[in-house]
């Protein structure tokens, strides 16, 4: 009856640890120092992959939400919730590293003329309302449905917002790949790609851990309920997290 969750997490965790170590090693010891910005430029190997992965996580959450509305399967809501939750956590990291970088290279903590940073802040502020929205809907079925509608709306908003903010400002952000000043040197590109892979693996691992934890604790709860009868099990506490149904 009981299903094991989190199988296959060990090789994935090992691969992630390896990839993160390699990426950091590359960033510190192999990547050449940037001619203009010097050592500070290395935060770029954390900041940019983190931003890409966070935005990718929001899109993943929107796709899972579409699946949820199409199939009515609540497991998709859980996937969407965990994806968006993790992306919000990464989003804090993106804003902090972005501000450190802005301070080091432009001398200000926040640069309004920098459309990517501003767009990211707006997207982040929008997704910050995901948890309060979920929390203020009590009925779990309705909560899942409304959260999915929000996730889809916000997912569609992301590209539109980037377009609008970009139109509004002339950009000063260093472009990652090909730009007017020329492409990244091959060595920097390699380091960048390896950090992107590491960050993606880290996200996937955390996502799978969180999914496994949610399922396992739900399973534990249902086992306790079976053992102790109905009285010992507390009623569902109001929560922003989706209710997990165990098979």
């Amino acid at each position, binding site marked *: 009856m009981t299903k094991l969750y989190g199988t296959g997490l060990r090789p994935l965790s090992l691969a992630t640890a390896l990839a993160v170590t390699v990426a950091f090693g590359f960033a510190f010891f192999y990547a050449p120092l940037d001619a203009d910005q010097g050592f500070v430029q290395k935060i770029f190997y954390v900041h940019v992959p983190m931003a890409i992965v966070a935005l990718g996580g929001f899109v993943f959450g929107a796709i899972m939400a579409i699946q949820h509305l199409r199939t009515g399967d609540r497991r998709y809501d859980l996937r969407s919730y965990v994806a968006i939750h993790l992306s919000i956590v990464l989003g804090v990291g993106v804003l902090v590293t972005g501000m450190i970088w802005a301070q080091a290279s432009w001398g200000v903590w926040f640069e309004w003329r920098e459309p990517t940073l501003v767009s990211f802040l707006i997207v982040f502020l929008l997704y910050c309302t995901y948890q309060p929205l979920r929390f203020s809907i009590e009925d779990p079925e309705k909560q899942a449905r409304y959260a999915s509608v929000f996730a889809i709306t916000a997912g569609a908003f992301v590209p539109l*917002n980037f377009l609008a903010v970009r139109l509004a400002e002339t950009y000063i952000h260093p472009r990652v790949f090909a730009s007017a000043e020329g492409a990244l040197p091959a060595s920097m590109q390699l380091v960048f790609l390896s950090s992107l892979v590491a960050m993606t693996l880290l996200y996937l691992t955390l996502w799978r851990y969180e999914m496994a934890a949610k399922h396992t604790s739900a399973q534990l709860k249902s086992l306790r309920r079976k053992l102790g009868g109905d009285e010992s099990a507390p009623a569902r506490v109001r929560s922003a997290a989706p209710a997990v149904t165990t098979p």
Partner: protein
Amino acid sequence: MFSTVATLLRKELRLELRTPQTVPAMALFSVTTFVVFHFALQARSVEGDLAAGVLCVTILFAAILGVNRLFVADHEEGGFDGFLLAPVDRTALLVAKALSLLAFLVLLELVAVPAFILLLLEPGLGVSALARLALVLFLVDIGIAVLGTLVAALAIQTRTRDLIVPIVALPLLIPVVIAAARGTAPLLAAAGAGALPGRWLALLGLYDLVFGLLAYAVFDFLLEE
């Protein structure tokens, strides 16, 4: 579909006509906000970028008041249940609500824009600039109406409706704010109305289209009981 929308829209407008609630509140709020801006900015008159910002923020916040009230009567008096029992397309409710919100916003601006010109705007406004301003504001209104209806429907079932509406709607409306502020700033310049940059109209049109289609696609899921 058409007759359903027309019936629902007639109901909305009649409701507002018999007990005027939302529109007078929005209009009063907008005029009070101009007074607040006068003192907060310590300016006897504004022009250009600042004028565009003042107008844009005032209309946005007044609109949030209307969005907050949009579904309250249906929720509290059982309008949703009646609508869900009727054998009609659910999308009709979205269209009717968005149209009624659009009508409220136009009515709001019929008060707010003249009040703004009288109270705060430095150069006054020529007829052609006024027409272009009306065009920008109309596209802004469509965007607010579509997104506002979606957010209002999302928030009406939550326990903290009044909190959810502004925090969800404001970030989602930032592209509209950008286009509205940038688009109207040259029209309100003291040196005489400048040209209206086409790309802000295009951005507003794109926003209206994307969120119109999106609201159409997801609205059904917000109504199931």
